[in-house]
């Protein structure tokens, strides 16, 4: 390097600019995007109004009844017909629609948020693990934990059929044994027979306690699970099993599956959340897995391994931050979708239980009165659904642009 006669104070390295973190950078770009800001404002209005209404504006849906004010059109002033102000009008039971829409927001948005969180956490973690172990060798205890978990998950079905909880733990134990046997390098055939037999026993015997037929069904299921667990343990196998289960979920039309789950669990807001959340799992699992697969091929992951970092740190410190942006975008878009699904369930009467306000069920309650001219009873909850979905979509689009590293200026 050449020597320069500059005192340290004089050196002004112009390549050094004020350093901004990724998030600050993204926020700056998001601010510059007008539609995204509109989306953000819409989303914030909905979130704030719903939260404030829930906590500071008492509303008891069960006693909210006023037959004297049935199906009143929107009015902003007290008149002879309506003794109270109803900016959005009233519905068939004389309930103020403005109030119900605002309170309904709490329920609808909550369904969206909780459902997305369920699918994000479950799907994200499954996808992360599947992708990570597909490209990086598992430690012994890791494969043990994963196979135990897999046994647990796979055992759930026969356990449910036979109504025998301990079946789940039997299959969990079978998963652990399979890892230990794997370490002993047993020949493939012996493994297969051994595990098929063990699975058959675990499934069938405990099923027989209930009935011969149940025992038979569970035995056959156990046979399959045993065969699955008999495959030598490796990240690829784990990933394959998880992703094929995801494919199975994805093969159902999502609305139908959600309806089927709610129909099975019974109506209710919480069950709606569960159903919508469950249907969304494979989307996040696939997204996370594909992102992890591409990121874990990057040299900095190898470099972090070469520095001696543990798998947990590699995964959560080096890989996760690098795959966060597509997942954030998908989650924002998914929120819009979940709100829509929640409304669809509500419309069909499978969401909130009747007096509870919820946008979808409000629509379902009042569409019959549309022909008699009560447009306001349908318009306002419908608008609320539309605007919130639009808001989340605009925000998601903006986030996609803001978080895309290729567009980084």
């Amino acid at each position: 390097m050449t020597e320069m006669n500059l005192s340290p104070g004089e050196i002004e390295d112009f390549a050094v600019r004020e350093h901004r973190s990724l998030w600050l950078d993204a926020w700056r770009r998001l601010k510059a995007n007008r539609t995204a800001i509109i989306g953000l404002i819409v989303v914030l209005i909905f979130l704030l109004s719903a939260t404030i209404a829930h906590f500071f504006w008492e509303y008891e849906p069960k006693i909210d009844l006023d037959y004297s004010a049935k199906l009143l059109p929107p009015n902003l002033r007290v008149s002879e017909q309506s003794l109270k102000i109803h900016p959005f009008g009233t519905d068939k039971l004389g309930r103020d629609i403005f109030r119900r829409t605002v309170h309904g927001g709490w329920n609808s948005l909550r369904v969206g948020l909780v459902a997305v969180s369920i699918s994000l956490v479950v799907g994200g973690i499954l996808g992360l693990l599947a992708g990570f172990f597909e490209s990086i060798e598992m430690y012994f205890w890791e494969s043990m934990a994963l196979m135990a978990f897999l046994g647990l998950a796979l055992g759930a079905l026969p356990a449910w059929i036979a109504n025998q909880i301990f079946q789940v733990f039997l299959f969990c134990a079978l998963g652990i044994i399979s890892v230990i046997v794997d370490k002993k390098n047993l020949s493939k055939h012996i493994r297969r027979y051994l595990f098929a037999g063990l699975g058959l026993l675990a499934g069938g015997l405990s099923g027989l306690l209930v009935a011969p037929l149940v025992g038979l069904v569970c035995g056959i299921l156990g046979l399959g699970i045993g065969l699955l667990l008999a495959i030598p343990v490796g990240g690829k196998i784990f990933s394959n099993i998880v992703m094929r289960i995801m494919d199975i979920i994805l093969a159902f039309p999502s609305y139908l599956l959600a309806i089927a789950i709610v129909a099975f669990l019974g109506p209710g807001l919480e069950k709606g959340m569960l159903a919508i959340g469950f249907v969304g799992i494979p989307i996040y699992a696939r997204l996370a897995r594909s992102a992890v697969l591409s990121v874990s091929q990057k040299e900095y992951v190898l470099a972090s391994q070469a520095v001696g970092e543990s798998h947990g740190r590699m995964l959560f410190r080096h890989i996760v931050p690098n795959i966060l942006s597509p997942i954030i975008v998908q989650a924002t878009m998914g929120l819009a979708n979940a709100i829509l699904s929640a409304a669809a369930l509500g419309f069909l009467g499978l969401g909130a239980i009747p007096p509870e306000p919820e946008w979808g069920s409000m629509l379902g309650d009042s569409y019959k009165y549309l022909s008699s001219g009560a447009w306001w009873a349908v318009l306002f909850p419908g608008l609320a659904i539309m605007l919130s979905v639009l808001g989340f979509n605009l925000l998601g689009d903006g986030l996609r642009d803001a978080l895309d590293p290729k567009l980084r200026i």
Partner: protein
Amino acid sequence: MDALLKIENLKTRFHTEDGVVKAVNGISYEMKKGEVLGVVGESGCGKSVHALSIMRLIQIPPGEIADGVIWFEGRNLLELDENEIRKIRGSDIAMVFQDPMTSLNPVYTVGFQIVEALKLHKNMSEKQGKVRAAELLDLVGIPDAKKRVDNYPHQFSGGMRQRAMIAMALSCSPKLLIADEPTTALDVTIQAQIVDLVIKLQEEMGMAVMWITHDLGVVAEMAQLINVMYAGFIIERGTAQDIFKRTLHPYTMGLLASLPSIDEAPGTKLISIPGLPPDLVDLPQGCPFYARCIYRKDHCQKNRPGLEEAKDGHYVACWRWDEIKVEGAK
């Protein structure tokens, strides 16, 4: 000086759909403390794979270290459990990778990534680590290191990133630094700077350096010993003088002949070794270089030569090195 690293009969395989790729085929050698070893060979000859095998960074599956022993300070690296090898990675053996553009994590500052290594192996606090990181960046010649610590990798140029990678590798004062083609992705002037830097640091810190490259010019300058690899075998090993002046193996001769010289007339055709290296899935039974060798005889096709000592410290794997020398003299 005793041996720092001793590799015996290391074999690394990759199980692919096309068959078993025999990437490293039973190599053995020793490295002393503070020694600079150059490993040269063309692409796909097992240089990087054998280095990754030492660090146990081969992905299993599809990879597999099929055989061999790697002694590092009296411990067999291949028999350590995951926690023990993790303690060695980064603190005793450090590695610098080929592509500086992707070997730093884009979402963290350069300082953060160096501090992380320090926290991991030296139990330093965040603050101490940051001070040390700035010192290290200064050591590797990054101007204004105190400010630069908080920069993100995209604010660094390629050369600076490679310097930062070296700083990261040196952070825990390793006993062995494996540099896996660290200059390949850089332009020539930066290459020279990086080479000078590593030589300087090696002398200051007294660590051993394994410099993996396909650039003979670079190793000639810095390495005391050179391993020439071909198709997963070490085919010649000796001092830089041995390799460059008293070349024995026909492959090394070919490599040297294909180096363009500065006094060549413009327009002269560059010399290259005809043919391609053998398919690592289906290695020939005899000498791996048989198909391309100009000195070959029938005996070479059937029998694989082992590494034998031709002169003290100069090893070669060729049946005919004796005769070739005579022929060359004629």
